Each structure stands twice: as C-alpha cells, then as structure tokens.
C-alpha cells in the first residue's frame, strides 16, 4: 500500500492505495467522484478523461501514484458557484449528450481543446481533436456544434475581459 496525496478539484486529499490502483479507480472508489467513467480500459474511449496539472490525461491508463503531488480536475470540479461552465452549458443548449456516459470525458476533452488551441476552432479541427473520445449516442453532430458554440462564447468572454 502507498499513500498518495494530490489536489482534487482544489481540495488537498490523500489516501492509501494498492500500488497498482489506477487513477480512475482512486477517483471513483476512494474519493467517491463517480463522474469520471470507465468505458474501455485501453485509453481509447476517453470517458475517464480528467485534467492533471492543466493537461488532459486518461485516468484509466495511469496509476494513482503517478498523479501524486499533482493537481487533478474532474468533471465535478468545473462548475463555479453552482453555475455551469460555458462548455457544460453549450452541451446542454446544443443537445450534445444523450445517455450521458461519455459526457464528462467529452467536456473535459473539449475544455482541453480550447486550452490548447484557442477559441478559433473550425468543424474539421474539432472532429480531428475528438479522436480520443468515443460517443455511441449522438453521432457527434451536436457535440461538434456544442464545442464550436462554447469556443465562440469563450472568445467573447475573453474579448470582453480585455
């Protein structure tokens, strides 16, 4: 057993885990943060995607001990004061989710996309960048629309702030 300590959604936490415990298992079972889902075990589907030190990682494919000392953000950590994140809001307004299982990973991936590439995203780029996330319900059409809408709104927010 090993003690891991990390910041999860802004809160300092620590826990005792078996060395082989995956980050996704640690978040779900040790921390009770069940919004992070496990859909494939082979880092293909992206349902388990979280941010570690500001970068997207697939939590089913890394050990909890590898995340020790880092700052992890999960889907539970992106709303501020009960207000949905712009990306969450855009998924709702564009019907970018159906069963909801891939949704946390999709949203975390989409936020990462904007963080990396900026807000000027076209459809081709969005589709290409989503290659690490699988959705079986929506056919991606409305997910692509949602990400574009969110990126546009985030651009406006940034412009207004300048």
């Amino acid at each position, binding site marked *: 057993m090993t003690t891991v300590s990390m910041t999860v959604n802004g809160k300092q936490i620590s826990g005792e885990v*078996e060395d*082989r415990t995956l980050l996704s*298992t640690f978040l*779900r*079972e040790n921390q009770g*943060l*069940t*919004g*992070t*889902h*496990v*859909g*494939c*075990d*082979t880092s*293909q*589907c992206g*349902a388990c995607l979280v941010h570690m030190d500001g970068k997207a990682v697939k939590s089913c494919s890394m050990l909890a001990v590898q995340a020790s000392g880092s700052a992890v953000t*999960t*889907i*539970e950590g992106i*709303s501020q004061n009960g207000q*949905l994140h712009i990306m*969450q809001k855009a*998924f*709702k*307004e564009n*019907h970018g*989710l*159906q*069963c*909801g*299982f*891939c*949704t*946390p990973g999709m*949203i975390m991936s989409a936020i990462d996309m904007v963080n990396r590439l900026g807000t000027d995203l076209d*459809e*081709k780029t*969005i*589709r*290409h960048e*989503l*290659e690490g*996330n*699988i*959705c*079986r*319900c*929506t*056919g*991606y*059409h*409305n*997910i*692509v*629309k949602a990400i574009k809408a969110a990126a546009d709104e985030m651009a406006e927010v940034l412009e207004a702030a300048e």
Partner: protein
Amino acid sequence: MTAEGIGARVLRKEDKRFLTGNGRYTDDMTMPRMGYAAFVRSTHAHARITSINTDEAMKMPGVDAVLNGHQLVADGIGNIICGWMIHSKDGSPMNMGAYRALESEIVRYVGQAIAIVVADTQQQARDAAEAVVVEYEELPTVVDSLDALKEGAPQLHPEAAGNLIYDWEIGEEAATNEAFANAAHVTTMDIDNNRLVPNPMEPRAALAHFDPSEEHYTLYTTSQNPHVARLVLSAFYNVAPENKLRVIAPDVGGGFGSKIFIYPEEIACLWATKRVGRPVKWTSDRTEAFLTDAHGRDHHTTAELALDANNKITGFRVKTVANLGAYMSLFSSSVPTYLYATLLSGQYNIPNIYANVKAVYTNTTPVDAYRGAGRPEATYVVERMMETAAKEVGMAPAEFRRINFVREFPHQTPVIMAYDAGDYEASLDAAMKAIDYDGFAQRRAQSEAAGKLRGMGMSCYIEACGIAPSQAVGSLGAGVGLWESAEVRVNAVGTIEVLTGSHSHGQGHETTFAQLVSDRLGLPTESISIVHGDTDKVQMGMGTYGSRSGAVGMSAIAKALDKVEAKAKKIAAHLMEASEGDIEIEGGELKVAGTDKKLTFTEVALAAYTAHNLPEGMEPGLKEGAFYDPTNFTFPAGCYICEVEVDPDTGVVSIENFVAADDFGTIINPMIVEGQVHGGLVQGIGQAMLENTQYDEDGQLLTASYMDYTMPRADDVPSFKLETTVTECPGNPLGMKGCGEAGAIGSPPAVINAVTDAIGIRDMNMPASPNRVWQLIQDNGMKQAAE
C-alpha cells in the same frame, strides 16, 4: 400548444446531472460490506470441461467464494430462456439447446461464464478468477453460419440436429415462383449483413443484495426493461418470487438493444449474494463486453427480384441464413423472422413475396436485437436490390422506386404487415432536393477532374415500430404482451409525477414525457417529474426498445391523462356549480366555457385531496393509471441519400453529403428526434464503413477491444442534413411512429449504394474499409484490362 408542449424544442431536464458528473449509473452504486465479482470464462470456443480447480484461487487474499455451475443447478436456478417461440415450416417448434448461467460441462463460445469469484476488491476478484484452473478437452469449432449447416460440421447442441434452430418461411412460395417464371427481368444478389457489437459506452453491470431477514433481493442493473428482467428472473430462473425481488435500472449509459436481455452475470450475482452473505457487484470491462454482450446482424442472404416488362416488381424471393451464435438469447428467435421478413416489402407494392430463414448455432457469442433488429437487415436487402435492379434495367434509381411505391393506404403486404399511413414520394422528393440531386453530375465531374470517384446512393426505408399489439405478437409466438403502462399522480399542490414502464437510457423521456403533460394541462415541465426504472415504484412495464416509448409508452400516459382530466373536470364543475361538459382545461386552469369562472389546476388538486367538498360518492385523490395496448405496428419511413468520394489510390471513402428525410408522424421534441437520427445514422454508417466483428477459425474473437473493432469517431463522419415530412399515425392517440432506430436502419444501404456507384462495381460487402474498396478497384481494373 404551450411553450413547452408538443412540438417545442425544450432543452432536456435530465442534462444537469450528466453534465456535472452527478449521473447515477449502476457501477456508481456501493453498499456496506460489498464484495466484487469476477467471472471465470471459457478460453475455448468449443470444449468439454474436464475439471475446475479452485484451490489456489480460494487461498488468495480477500477471496470469499468461487462458485460454479454444478452448485448453481443444485440450487435450482433455471436455464436461460428464449421468449419467442418460432415454428419451422414443417410445424415443429424451434430446437433450443440448454443454456445455463454458469456452464460446467461443455462450453460453446469464448467468454462463456464458467464460475463466479467474489472477493473484497475488484482486483482481488479478477486475480482469483485468473487463478482458477479449468481443464478442457477441445472440440471442433464452427463460426460461420453457412459452414454450420454443412454435412459433417461440428455439432453444438444435441437438441439441434445439423445446428439448425429452425427452418422458417413466410409468404406464398408457389405464387412467387410463378411470378419469377413470367418475369421480364430478374435481379439476383448474394448479400451479407456483417456482425456488429452494440457497444453502449457504459459496460453492463450488476449490484445484487440479499436481505435474509426479509428473504428479499435488490438488483441494480444496466437494463432497458427492469420489469421484464424481474419477471424472467422470478418466473424462469427461480431467483425469488416477484414480491421478493426489486429490480432497479438507474441511469443507464446507452443500450441499443444489448441491455434488453437477461444475461448470465445478473443471474449469477443474485444467486451469489445469498450464498456469500454480502452485496455483490460486477462490472464488465470492455473486452468482456465484446465477448458477452449479445451481438447483432450476421446474415447471409440470396435475394431475387422479378420485374415485368414495365419494370414493376412482380415478385421477391429471399433466402437467409441467420447466425444466432452458441445459444438463444432472450428475443433472438424473433429478430431474423418477424422483425425481418415482415419488412421485405419495403416501401413497394410487391404482389408476391416468399422468404425462407434458417437460424443456426455456431461457436460465437449469442446474437440478438441490436438497434433496428431485423429491420436494418431487411432494408439492406431490399434497398441494395432496388438500386441494383434499377441500374440493370437502365432506370434512374429514384424513378424505379417511384413507379413501385405503395401509394394507397391502408396497404396489406404479402408478409403480414398492414401499412397504415405514409407518403414515400414526399420523403424521396425532400431528400433529393436537400442533397441537390440535380447538381450531382457536376460535382461528379469535379471529383473526376481531381482524380477521385464520386458516387451517390439512396435508400427508401420502412420499418415497423410501436411494438406491439399484444394479441398479434402472442399469435406469432411472443411470450409476453407488448403494451405499456403509465400512472399520472397529481400531488395535492398540483405538481405531477408520471410513472412509466418505459425506460430512458439516453432518449430524453424525462423531457418529452413531461412535454406531453404540459401540452395537455398547460403546466410548466418544471413541475412534472418522470419516474421510471424501479419495480418498487412502477408496478409493471415492458421497457424501451423497438422505438416504442413514444408510440406505446406515451399513449399510455395520454390515456391516464384522459382519466385525470375527466376527474379534475368533475371536481371543478362541482366546485364552480357548472356543467362538467362546459369545463375546459387551458394554461393550467380549469375554466367554465363562456364565463370568467375558473380554478387553477392546483386548487382542483388540493380540493381532490382535502376532500371537503367533492361530488357525491367521489373518492378522494387525483391519481390515475392506464395500460395501452397498440392496435397496430407503426411505420416510420423515409429516404436517405449518401454522396461519397473515393480515392482510387488508397480506397479511402469519405462521405461528402448525407441527407435524411424521415416521416416519424407527430414529433414531440424536434431537438431530441434529430439527436436520435444523428446517432442512428452514425451507427449505420459505422456498420457500412468501419465496424466488423471478426472471429478466427477457432472461434477466437479478433475484434475484442477498441483497438481492434473500429468504432466511428468524430472525424469518420460528416454533419448531417435532416428533413422531416409528416403523415400522422392513425393507430395511436398522438399520431407518433417512433424515431429511435431509423438512422441505423436506413443508412447502410445508402452508403454502400453510393460506394458501389462511385467505383462502378455491383457487389460488395460491408464494411467499405479502404482495404476492401482498394482491392475491389484493383480487381475490377484487372478485369477490365483483361476484357
């Protein structure tokens, strides 16, 4: 219509919990003292088990128990059933082999469950399952259905000689043969429908708990129909009487048919929880899902279409061999028969149809309903034949379809179905306009100039939803009625709970069902909650599949609302001293027509519960239930057109344009309906271009992870252009037809018709992978060079 009523694009009420990580799926549930289950699974596709040694496994840390099939049978757990009886053409009942939740004698597919391990953690359970030593005596295997029918093929079940489950027929053979004898032209094709794995993103899971003091079981499970699960677990698997078994299907992460069935794992978890005295949770990993979730499709078909001198269809003859895998899953028998061959008339006036279907056992994962279930297979055969026949007789595919369309309703086909309403030309016209059909020649020339091949293909699908009239399906062999139930509970202050036997696993029922109530009573959807998925809350229901929740589930709600409205009007009339016939319900108020007298719905609800002043003899309360049994199937139909560009140097196909024009009858929420179509289209395009389930000759599944089975990803598919045309369904009170499966039904033939058009080749199998397309182009080039 209210702002949130029928036809409004209301944003979904259920979204917030999914967007914030607060969805509650089965694997999210925990219980005190919970143990984790893992399964010991067959590593061979066909083998006799000679021994199961659990000594090492039992010594491992955290392990509670390793239980096998001998113990399961000794405890009286029943064999897994198939709920739809099919009779062969000679009148004999289907030949069904015994299917145990845990097999201890002969395993028949890779991944079949042999033993269940329960331990303190999931890793411990999985480690212990690995340590169980099963010794096998290997037996010969057969994986393809045509091979399974050959003489000398390995035999799977003593009950099914020659691996034949049934040899079934529909239609008039003699009359159809005569049509062929007199035909001016006959088109013949061999058409395969590739095996698919449904792949909802949430893997199956079960959490079972036994309370010894009450002799009561609770099962959380990933089910599309928890009530059917309870019925079957109770009546056939002898787990517990219904009143001692609560089944809860909480948030479920997609189903597509694969979560209709009751699988070995749920049965084993329920059985094991009592044996080990602690709650037991099992969650499938993705490879287990590939190995054990019921697969879909897998048909070999030979089809012949007879035309007269005017290119009118005179006969259709179809022979299909359907691979049902190693065992018969819950509704497997109905898929290649009544859900398939009854749709072979397509949108066309075909006077003579005859179909013969042989269902066979092979050493592969059981096959059952997957999005569309039989109707995609029928549509693929019909629409590949239509496109090919049109080209053979030198007609434009659209015009050939046009002269053969059914134009008068009701229309009785030769294969049971009576189409009630439709306008097939309207959807064809809408689709052709939306894709700019007339501009295609120019676009094709542009592609050619760039060294590419452009093609266009269409598909005019029809399907049967709203399953189903109970008496009708009962007469065809179904073991259950296919009605739906609803209860509308008006609370004392006028808020409403609607209990439904339908189950939402992505379809958005919490929103659309509330819209129906809002439309009727003029109340905001915010004050209306939908309750589903729990056998303790909803008494009975048949669940969600076959695009039935709108046409059947909402019709039940509409019937219950009729009763609520009738009682509310009586109360309002009494309170306002008016005639009941003069009361109108509008905008959340009950008004006396032609006067300014009115009561709010809340005031009437409160009066029903205070019961201080009710009409003479009326019971207090405002709560009504209804069961709705449909009078006919519903017949969604439409036209899909796909335009592709093929790179002849690489065989890569890209979809340049895709138009779907659908007639779903009444639409409650266009936003949700569009989402259903998008998702269905991508599953159908996935089948046509990417997905394939591949076994090797020993029955090992080669495509058992997302690294091997090609799921459609965002950059594999385009955005879509959707059109709707509307003919209301006359068979139900809302005029709804259903929209959940159309996309997956209509799109595969449109894609393959487009690809074959582009490369100028008549026959090809799905998926149109770059390798296959490139090879066909090479072979064709060789052939042309030789000619």
